[in-house]
């Protein structure tokens, strides 16, 4: 945890209204791991003692949004409660967040841009794989598409700009890099990330009893696997 950044966390939560049924609760003006851990801890505290009329709790990088029923929720009371929780949140931070292992088959037809990422950063392909899979990535938030994790912690050695022209179809499971971010495409979609590999699991399957493999607040580790293991794992899970 970066001590120097502690002062960026607000001493009191900052509230902003999102229409008549949303409340944005801001923790900091910037992105950092400690702020984000606090946000997830705050969400857990709130869920344990959920005030009536709350429809959604949506954590994000440096804030969260509460969606509420405007005719049920007493706003001044709710804000009072949130301020108290904000004071208690320190002790609720989970320093042992769940680690989710994501197998990745790097390169080949699964990671067409792996060579480019290596060349761009003056590294060998093996070095890219070793750096990318040697990091524990915090899941700051999920969004954009179902199950898409916004990850922190990509090594500066791997930063690579987006493709000049996005692909019209990126297959689900593709692992990519765009600027200072790395991530996984949970569903087939268009996209401009540099693709370095693919995960055989479905990050999101609406018909599975638990539709999502990863939740905000988890930590994620990529495990390199061979093509053979990729197909074996894929068969195993379908």
């Amino acid at each position, binding site marked *: 945890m970066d001590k120097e950044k502690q002062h960026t966390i607000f001493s009191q939560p900052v509230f*902003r*209204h*999102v*229409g*008549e*049924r*949303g409340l*944005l609760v801001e923790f900091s003006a*910037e*992105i950092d791991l400690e702020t984000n851990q606090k946000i997830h801890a705050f969400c857990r505290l709130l869920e344990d003692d959920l005030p009536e009329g709350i*429809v*959604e*709790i*949506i*954590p*994000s*990088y*440096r*804030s*969260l*949004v509460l*969606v509420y029923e*405007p*005719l049920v929720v007493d*706003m001044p009371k709710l804000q009072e409660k949130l301020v108290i929780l904000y004071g208690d949140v320190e002790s609720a931070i989970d320093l042992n967040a769940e680690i989710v292992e994501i197998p990745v088959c790097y390169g080949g037809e699964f990671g067409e841009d792996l060579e480019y990422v290596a060349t761009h950063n003056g590294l060998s392909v093996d070095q890219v794989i070793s750096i990318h899979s040697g990091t524990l990535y915090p899941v700051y*938030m*999920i*969004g*954009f*598409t*179902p*199950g*898409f994790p*916004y990850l922190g912690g990509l090594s500066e050695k791997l930063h690579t700009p987006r493709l000049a022209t996005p692909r019209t179809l990126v297959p689900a499971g593709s692992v990519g890099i765009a600027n200072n971010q790395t991530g996984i495409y*949970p*569903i087939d*979609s268009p996209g401009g990330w540099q693709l370095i590999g693919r995960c055989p699991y479905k990050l*999101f399957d*609406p*018909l599975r009893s638990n*539709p*999502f493999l990863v*939740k*905000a607040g988890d930590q994620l580790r990529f495990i390199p696997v061979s093509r053979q293991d990729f197909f074996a794992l894929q068969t195993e899970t379908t």
Partner: protein
Amino acid sequence: MPAAFKISRPGAYSTVQDLGRFGYQRYGVPPSGALDRFAAQTVNVLLGNHENCAVLEMTMSGPVLEILAPCTLAVTGAAMPITLNATIVKNWSSFPVVKGDVVTIGHAEAGCRAYLGINGGIDVPVIMGSRSCYTDGRLGGHEGRPLVAGDILASCEQQIDRDTFENRVIPVAYRPTYSSHWELRAIPGPQDDYFDQGLELFFSQQFTITPQANRMGYRLKGPTIERKKTMPASIISEPSLPGGVQIPEGGDPIILLSEQTVGGYAKIATVIRDDIAKIAQAMPGDTIRFRKVSIEEARDIERKNKELLSLLKDEYSGEQSFAVLGKQYYKSEIFNEKIMNFLRQI
């Protein structure tokens, strides 16, 4: 469940929707749901259904249905002409059909989205608590996609005798009128502090809806809304809610709707939920003005709207017709002129 009808022609863009999927936005799943909640709720009330029953949201033009089993149907929302075999059927009313009937729902003559309800509600699987279709996520609705020719939809079983709900009408006074100019009430924020003159422009000038308008959002064209010089071009990505008006770099507003979970630009204002029904009925080329309201005003509107809907529902559980209700309604003191105007506008 019994098959109710087969789609002979699907219409421009028809999806199954209920009132939305909640609790999953933290996993990146947007609420979805009928864009015009009032029309979707009303069609269910007409048929004696729970207001959250799944209906068919039809965009710009409707489908041709071949009826497979006797049932009761109703269409509310945009004025799409309906014929049953060769006979004209009224909108905002329920009508019985039998096996072999052909129901044709045409192009919208006013408004943009109409809602087809069936007694019992459309029976598609409940995915994560809702029947709503989210096409980008390929989930919910009928196989997670808009309908195509040949699709067969079933209805859920209904406890109440459906005859009770035949030939019911919602009188004209309660139906919204659809024009090509819309006033949308909006609450400033969450990032109204990113703007100074831009905020004044936003609440005083007229905007036009571009062809980039769908269930994810509506792009507008109008005076360029500039942020304060000291403010950054984008914000750190945060959750977006339906109605949020995002100002991207070019300064042309985008109204975010119900198939969006995250936004990376400052949101100058948020359209109140009841006025999202107006956006649902607005077409590319239509004009929009935003009117500033407070949270308290928005809450009052919500309260009155809820009272109206529960009155409509009560009426259906009894024997009185809507015409009788109408007289009561005008006499009733709980509804003031404001809510009547609201109803006519939405």
